[in-house]
C-alpha cells in the first residue's frame, strides 16, 4: 500500500482520536493559546538616530510611561525607523544592540576624580569637578598663553591644553565646543575624523 506522508499523518490522527474516544474518561484541556503580549502596546515612541556609524540610521526608541510627570521614562526597546529613507527600519548588529549600550552597567553616573598617584576613583560633586578642572585650566592658560610670537605678531594661542572632540556628539555640541575652544585660544584639538 502506498501511503503518502500526509495520509500517514491522517491515519495516525484518526488512530489517536479513535483511541481517545475509546478511553474517554479524561477530557482533554480546552484548546487555548495566546501569544506573548506585545510589549510596546502603549509605550512612548521617540524618533532618534543610531550613534554608531555614519549611515546614521533612524531609530525608534520606546520608553515606558506617557511622559506624564510621575512616570519616569525608561528605555525598553530600540528598533529601526521605517520612515528613514536610508535604513528603512533595518539596523545592523550594533544598532540592534543599542539598548544594551544605553543600559550598560559601565555607564558613568556621577563625576569622579583620580588623584595623582592614587589607585582609585573618588566620587565628587559636579561643582567640585568643574571648580577643580577650571582651576587647572586657568593656571595652565595663564602660565602658558602666548600673546605674541617672536616676530611680534599677535598669535593669542594656548597650546599646552588639548581637546579631543567626540564624533558621536551632535553638530550643535561640536559647534559649541569649537566656539569655546577658539575663544580660549586653544589650537591643539582634534576629532575622530582622521582616525
Amino acid at each position, binding site marked *: 500500500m502506498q501511503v503518502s*506522508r500526509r495520509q500517514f499523518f491522517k491515519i495516525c490522527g484518526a488512530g489517536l482520536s479513535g483511541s481517545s474516544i475509546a478511553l474517554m474518561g479524561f477530557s482533554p484541556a480546552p484548546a487555548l493559546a495566546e501569544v506573548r503580549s506585545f510589549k510596546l502596546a502603549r509605550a512612548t515612541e521617540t524618533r532618534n538616530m543610531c550613534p554608531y556609524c555614519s549611515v546614521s540610521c533612524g531609530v525608534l526608541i520606546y520608553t515606558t510611561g506617557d511622559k506624564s510627570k510621575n512616570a519616569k521614562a525608561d528605555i525598553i526597546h530600540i528598533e529601526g525607523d521605517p520612515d528613514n529613507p536610508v535604513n528603512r527600519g533595518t539596523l*545592523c548588529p550594533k544598532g540592534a544592540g543599542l539598548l544594551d549600550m544605553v543600559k550598560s552597567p559601565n555607564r558613568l553616573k556621577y563625576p569622579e576624580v583620580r588623584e595623582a598617584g592614587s589607585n582609585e576613583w573618588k566620587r565628587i560633586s559636579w561643582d567640585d569637578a568643574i571648580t577643580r578642572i577650571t582651576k587647572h585650566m586657568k593656571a595652565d592658560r595663564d602660565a602658558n598663553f602666548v600673546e605674541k610670537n617672536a616676530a611680534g605678531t599677535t598669535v593669542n594661542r594656548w597650546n599646552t591644553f588639548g581637546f579631543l572632540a567626540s564624533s558621536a556628539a551632535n553638530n550643535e555640541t561640536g559647534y559649541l565646543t569649537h566656539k569655546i575652544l577658539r575663544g580660549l585660544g586653544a589650537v591643539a584639538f582634534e576629532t575622530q575624523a582622521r582616525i
Partner: protein
Amino acid sequence: MALQSLDIARRSATTTPPPGVRQTTEVAKLIDVSACIGCKACQVACMEWNDIRDEVGSCSGVYDNPVDLTAKSWTVMRYAEVEEKGKLEWLIRKDGCMHCADPGCLKACPAPGAIIQYANGIVDFHQENCIGCGYCVTGCPFNVPRISKEDNKAYKCSLCSDRVAVGQAPACAKVCPTGAIQFGSKEQMKDYADKRLVDLKSRGYDKAGLYDPQGVGGTHVMYVLHHADRPELYSGLPDNPSISPLVGLWKGFAKPLATVAMAAVALGSLFHYVTKGPNEVSKELEDELEKEDAK
C-alpha cells in the same frame, strides 16, 4: 490578541480539533542566503526583542558565536568556507526554527498546549505548559529546540508571534540590513524567491533553488540557496528532512495501538474472570489437609 487564541491549527497532546473555521493568511520568512552578509543583526535583534541574553562566550577559532543554538540564542549564524575549483565561497546560513507545516516537535510533545501551531503557520512553544521532557528535541528534524538549564523548559524561535499577532514582522526580518530576511505571506515569499532565483541563475548559479522541504510538509521559514542541490554545504542543512521514523513510529500507530492493547489486556482479564470464574483451591484438598491435621 484574545481572538488569536482561537486561530490555532494544532495543539500538542490534544486529541480534539481546535476551532478551525477561520482561515488566516499563512505567513513565511524567506532567508535569501545569497544576500546574507552574516552580520548577526538578526541574532542581536532576536535577543533584544525577546528579552534574552546569552552568555558572553569565547572564541573557538571560528566566527560562529554563540557556537550553537541555546535556550537563549534562538537563531545563530553558521559560517562555512567552501572552496571548489579554486573559488572560495563563504556560505553563511541563519539557523533556527523552520516552522514546519508538519512540526515534529509538536507531534512528539506530550504536554497539552505546550506547542501550538497557529493557523498562520507559526509553531510556538508555550513554556507555561512545557513540562521540560525534551521530546520536542527528538521530534525536530532540524535539531532546533533547546531545553534551558535554568528552568528546564524548551525554547526556540517563536517567529516573534507577539509581533506577527499585531501585524508586525519578526524582529530578525525587520532588522536585516541587506534584506536577506524577508517576511510576508507564504505566497508572497515564494514569488519573491522566484525572482531571486532568476537573478541568481543569471549570475551563474544554475542550481539555485528554494528550500521548502516537503518531507515536513513545507516550512514557514524558507531559504533561497545558490546551491540548492547540495544543502549540506550550508553547515549541514539536511537534504531531505523528515520527522525521524522512530518518532513517527513512537507517536504514530504505536501508541494508540498499545493503548488499545493495554485496555484489551485489562478487559480480557475481566472477562476471563467472569467467564471462567476464580481459580480456587479445591475443596477436596482443603478437606484432605484438615483431615490430616485432625489426626
